[in-house]
C-alpha cells in the first residue's frame, strides 16, 4: 500500500515536471491546426501571414523575419496572453 502510494506520487511529480514541455507542444499543435486570422480588432491592424518563398529573400534574411512575425501574430489566443501580461504588469508598476 505504502509502496503504491509512493509510486503514485512520483508519477504525479513526473507529469507535473513535464507540463511545460507538454504546454509547448500543445501550443505548437494548436498553432498548426487553428485557422490563420487576417485582422486584429484589438490592435487595429492586419496580421502577418506566411510569406512567399523566394530564395533571394531567404538569403537577405527578410523571409526569416517574416516567418517570425507570422508566428507571433498568429500565436494561439494572442489577446488572452496580452491581457494576462497587462494585469500582471499592474502589480509591478503600481503608480501610487
Amino acid at each position, binding site marked *: 500500500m505504502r509502496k503504491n502510494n509512493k509510486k503514485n*506520487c512520483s508519477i*504525479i*511529480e*513526473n507529469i*507535473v*515536471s*513535464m*507540463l*511545460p*514541455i507538454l*504546454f*509547448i*507542444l500543445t*501550443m*505548437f499543435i494548436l*498553432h498548426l491546426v487553428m485557422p490563420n486570422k487576417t485582422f486584429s480588432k484589438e490592435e487595429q491592424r492586419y496580421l502577418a501571414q506566411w510569406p512567399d518563398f523566394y530564395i533571394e529573400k*531567404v*538569403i*537577405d*534574411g527578410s523571409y*526569416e523575419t517574416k*516567418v*517570425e*512575425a507570422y*508566428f*507571433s501574430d498568429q*500565436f494561439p489566443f*494572442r489577446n488572452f*496572453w*496580452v491581457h*494576462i*501580461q*497587462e494585469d*500582471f*504588469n499592474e*502589480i*509591478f*508598476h*503600481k*503608480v*501610487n
Partner: protein
Amino acid sequence: MVFSSLFFIFAFLPITVILYYLFGNHLKNIILLTASLFFYAWGEPVYVLLMCTSIMVNYCICILLGRGKASRRKRKFLLIISLAFNLGCLAYFKYFGMIMSTIGSIGNWNLNIGTPALPIGISFYTFQILSYVIDVYRGKIKSQKNLTLLSLYITMFPQLVAGPIVNYGDIELQLAHRKMTFKKFASGLRRFLCGLAKKVLLANNIGLLWSEVKAMQSIEISVLMSWLGIIAFTLQIYFDFSGYSDMAIGLGKMFGFRFKENFQYPYISQSISEFWRRWHISLGSWFKEYVYIPFGGNRVGKWKMIRNLFLVWFLTGLWHGASWNFVLWGLYFGTLILMEKLFLQKSMIRWPKAIRHIYLLMFVVIGWVFFEFSNLTDILNFLQIMFGVGDNPIIDSQAIIKLKTYICLYILCIIAASPWPKKLALLFKRIHFKIYRLAINLYYCLLMFLSTAYIVSSTYNPFIYFRF
C-alpha cells in the same frame, strides 16, 4: 533566432526535441548538428558559410597537428596558420570598422569604407575553436577525427550565439557518449525556464527604466534618477546575460550535455577579483588559460605580471565590442584588480563585510557607465550627474514617481540576484521533500505561463549580448 522568441520556443524547440528523441541514439548527433546549422543559418543565411569554412580549416589543421610524425617546427607553423586565420576573421568581421575609424581620426582621413556586418556569435565560436586548436597543439587533447562531432562542438545551438564558452576537453566524451534520462531532461527544462524568466520577466522590464533614463536630455536627469537608471542597467545586464547562460545550460542538459556554470551570484562578491571569478566565468578562464598563463602569468617579475594583467584586461574589454569604451571598461577593471593585488587586499580583510560589499557594488555600477556609453563625453557627463557635479537637481518629482513605480521590481530583482531563494528552497526541500518537488515543478509551470504572456506582448525583444 533568439531563445526568447515565440518561434524558437514554440516551433524550433519542440520539433528538435521530438526528432532528437524519436530517432534514438545513432542519429542524435546528426540531428542536433542539422538543427544547429539551421538555427544559425536562420539568423545568418550567408555567414553560416564562414562558420563552416572556419570549422573545415581548423579541422584539417588539427588532423595534421595530431599526427605524431610532424616535427616541432611544422607544428608551430600549423598553429600560427590557424591563429592567423581565426584571429584574422575575427579582426576583419568585428574590428575592421573600429580600426579604420581610429586610423582615420588620428590622421584626419576619411576612411569610412563599407564595413562588414558582424556575424552573430563570432566572438564565442572563434574562442571555442581557438581553445580546441591550442589544446591539440599542446597535446592536452587528441584531435577529433570525426567531422560531425567537431562541428557539433562548435555549432551546438544552445551555446553557439551567446556562450558559455565550452572547452573541448570538457565535453569531448559527452559528444560521443552521453546519457539522456528523463530526470536530466526535466531538470534541463526547469533550468531553461529559469533563464527564460530571468530574461523576459526581469531583465526586459527593469531595462525599460534604463532606456527611459538614457533617452532623457542630460540636463533633465536628477542625481537620484541617474542612480535609479544605472542600477536598473546593472540588474538588467545581469539577468539578461545570466538568463541566457541558464537557458544554454538548460537546453544542453535537455540534450544530455553538462556545461559548466557561467555565473555564480556575481553581485554578492566582496572584491573586484571575486566579482570576476563569478561573472562570465567561462570567458575569464579562457583568458587566463590562453593568454595570461602562456605569457608567464604571475610567476614572472612584478613588471611583467603587470603587463600580462593589462594585456588580459585590454583584450577582455575589446572582446565585448568593437568600440574604445569597452577597452576603457576593461582597463578600468584591470587597474582595480591590480590595486587589489598589490596592496588593497591586505587591508581589505580588516574591513567590515558590508563595507567590502558596498565598495564592490560601487565600482561595478560605475563600470557599467563605461560599458553603456560609447563616447567619453557621455561617460564623463553621466558620471558628473551621478556624483552631483554640476547643476542637476538631487531629487525631482519624476525620479520619485519612477522609484515608486519600479520599487517592487527592484526588490524582486535584488532578491533574485542573491542566493537566498535557492537557500530557502533547499531548506524547504529538507523539511518536506515531496511537497517541495511538487511545488517547485508547479512554480516552473507558472514561470512558463507568465513568460509566454510577456513574450507574446512584446514582439520586439532582442538580446543585449547579441552585439558581441
